C-alpha cells in the first residue's frame, strides 16, 4: 500500500525493542509485527494514540504517504 509505517526507524531512534513497545502500547508483539511489516489493513485511533504517547511523536512521524498504486485487495483471491 502507498501508506508506509515507520516503526523501525522510530524504535531505533528511541532505543526501544518491539516487545517493549508492545507491552507499553498494550497490543501483542504479533499484532505490532503485522503493523511494522505493513500487512495491517487499518489502525485504530486508540492504538495510534498509544503509539504516539509511547514514542513521543506525531501520527505523521509513524505514517507516511508514498505515491503509487495501492496493493490489490486480498479478498478476491481468498474466497
Amino acid at each position, binding site marked *: 500500500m502507498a501508506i508506509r509505517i515507520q516503526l523501525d526507524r522510530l524504535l531505533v531512534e528511541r532505543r526501544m525493542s518491539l516487545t517493549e513497545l508492545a507491552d507499553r502500547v498494550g*497490543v501483542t508483539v504479533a*499484532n*505490532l509485527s*503485522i*503493523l511494522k511489516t505493513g*500487512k*495491517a*489493513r*487499518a*489502525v*485504530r485511533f486508540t*492504538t495510534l494514540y498509544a503509539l504516539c504517547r509511547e514514542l513521543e511523536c506525531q501520527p505523521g512521524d509513524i505514517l507516511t504517504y508514498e505515491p503509487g498504486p495501492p496493493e490489490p485487495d*486480498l*479478498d478476491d483471491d*481468498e*474466497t
Partner: protein
Amino acid sequence: MPSDRSHPERSDRPTPGLAGIRALGRAIPFRISFKTPFKTLGPGSVSSLLKIALDVAYVLLMVITAVLLLVFLASIFVPIANLNITVSNDSGGRQQPLTRPLLLFGVGALTSYFGGFLLILRNLRMIFRTLTIGDPFQPDNVRRLRQVGLILAVVTGGVWLAQGVVAARLAPGVMERQGFGELLTPIFSVLVVFVLAEVFREGARLRRESELTI
C-alpha cells in the same frame, strides 16, 4: 437507540392510513424479542449435537451408497431375463417387465442421488465442525456452501430429469412425469444456499478485516 413500544410514535403527524397500520402494529406484538435458551455455537452447543447427528447420517449414507454401488455392478452381470420380475406403480395398475436398462438406470440414478447427498453431508459436517469450534466465518466455509448449492442443484435437477426419462421412455405409464412446479422448491433452496454462501463470504471478509486491524 432503544425501542419504545409502550409509547406512541414520536414522528410528525402520521397519515390516516399509516396511523391505522401503526395502531395495528401496536396491538399485535410483531417485534417479539426471542433469544434461544440454549447455546448454539461453540463446544457443547447445539452445533456439536448436530455435528454428531451429521456424522451418524454420513456413515449410514456411505454404507447405503456402497451397497447401491455393489448392486449396480451386480446388475450389469446378473441375468435378469429368467427372473420374470415386473414393476408397477403404487396403485398396482399397469405392470411392466424389469428390463436391464430400466434396472441399470434406476439403480444408477439412486446411487448418484445418495452419492450427491453424501457429498452434501460431507461439506455440512465440515461446516458444523467450524461452528463447534465457534469460528463460522472461515473462507473455506464459503467454498463448502457453494459446493452444497451446486450439488443440490445437480441432484434435484437430476432427479427431475431422471423421472422424466423413466416416465417417457423406460417405463411409460408406471411413473408420472413431474411438472415444472415441482422444481420451484429445489430452485428456491439452491438460491437460499447460494445467498447464504455470499453472507458467509462477507462474514469472512469482515473477520479478516478485523484480524488485520491493529
